[in-house]
């Protein structure tokens, strides 16, 4: 269950970050929740289909040793950055250009 929540949370936050970055108007809370939920579910399903979820669960339970712990540490680091980006882009409220 922890692995499922981690993956869902990761992909929800990245959905939020992208929505905040690309929205040209003031971010809408309901729309943001929907986008976060959809990206969370899609990401979790992809992770499940590609065995990533199994590996995450085993890493969290310690079965895969230090490599697993490092992998989880990397995911948590990415999650923190994505969360920071989501908050940052939400607060700035401006669209961006991919190429500038």
């Amino acid at each position, binding site marked *: 269950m922890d692995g499922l929540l981690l993956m869902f949370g990761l992909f929800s936050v990245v959905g939020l970050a992208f929505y905040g970055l690309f929205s040209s108007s003031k971010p809408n809370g309901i729309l943001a929740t929907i986008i976060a939920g959809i990206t969370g579910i899609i990401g979790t399903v992809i992770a499940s289909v590609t065995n990533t979820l199994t590996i995450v669960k*085993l890493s969290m339970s310690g079965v895969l040793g230090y490599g697993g712990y490092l992998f989880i540490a990397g995911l948590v680091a990415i999650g923190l950055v994505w969360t920071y980006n989501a908050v940052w882009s939400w607060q700035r409220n401006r669209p961006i250009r991919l190429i500038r």
Partner: protein
Amino acid sequence: MARGRRRTTRRRKKNVLGTLWGQILAIITLIALIPLGVSATAGYNVRSNVEALEGDIWHDYNATVGYAYELYNGSITKVTPTGTLYTTTHQNSTLVLCLDMQEEELNDATYVRLKFGVINATEVKLYAVDGSDEYLITSADVSTNSTVVLTYDAIDYTKVMDKLGDVDYCKLVFTPIQPGTHNITVELVKPEGLVIKHTTLINSILYAGGVLFILIALASTTSWDPLRGLI
């Protein structure tokens, strides 16, 4: 003349582009590169050339039944083999052979080679068992005078550990088996050449993935950008 002089404010800009590409790279790594890397390395030990291992291969199911039994309508009947010959007495029953294979053996890529003489069954399945729980590892068709090697890769191993957490023993299940004497030679084998533990194979990718994620996370901050040259 101060007229027309525009006041400018300098805001500290975050490296949005680096951040965004960092996220995209992280997503691609997470949903594509990690699974691809795991799949590519997971099959390393699965080789057709195998060599037999020494030692006893049987696990006593319990003191009464022993390692071989026939399962029919929920009742268990002990089967005492004579060499490689196993005799069953019921139609469409199940013959079960218990193997001395725990998680260590599974992690070491210990496979099962079956050499059949005369046998009247259709399919054999290899299960991992933990208490009352069991997980199907792999299966194969059965035919007289044939040989099969039941193999599995590192992903199969991780799935077993995910579902069971611990493996007491493994068992071979022959279904449906008909009354008669069946000639089955069971060997525990290992792949020829260098065998790497399944956990080590998975770990090699996890180490790389973990380091990459941390680098991307650091690169997505403004203070340090080691991946700048890459993106």
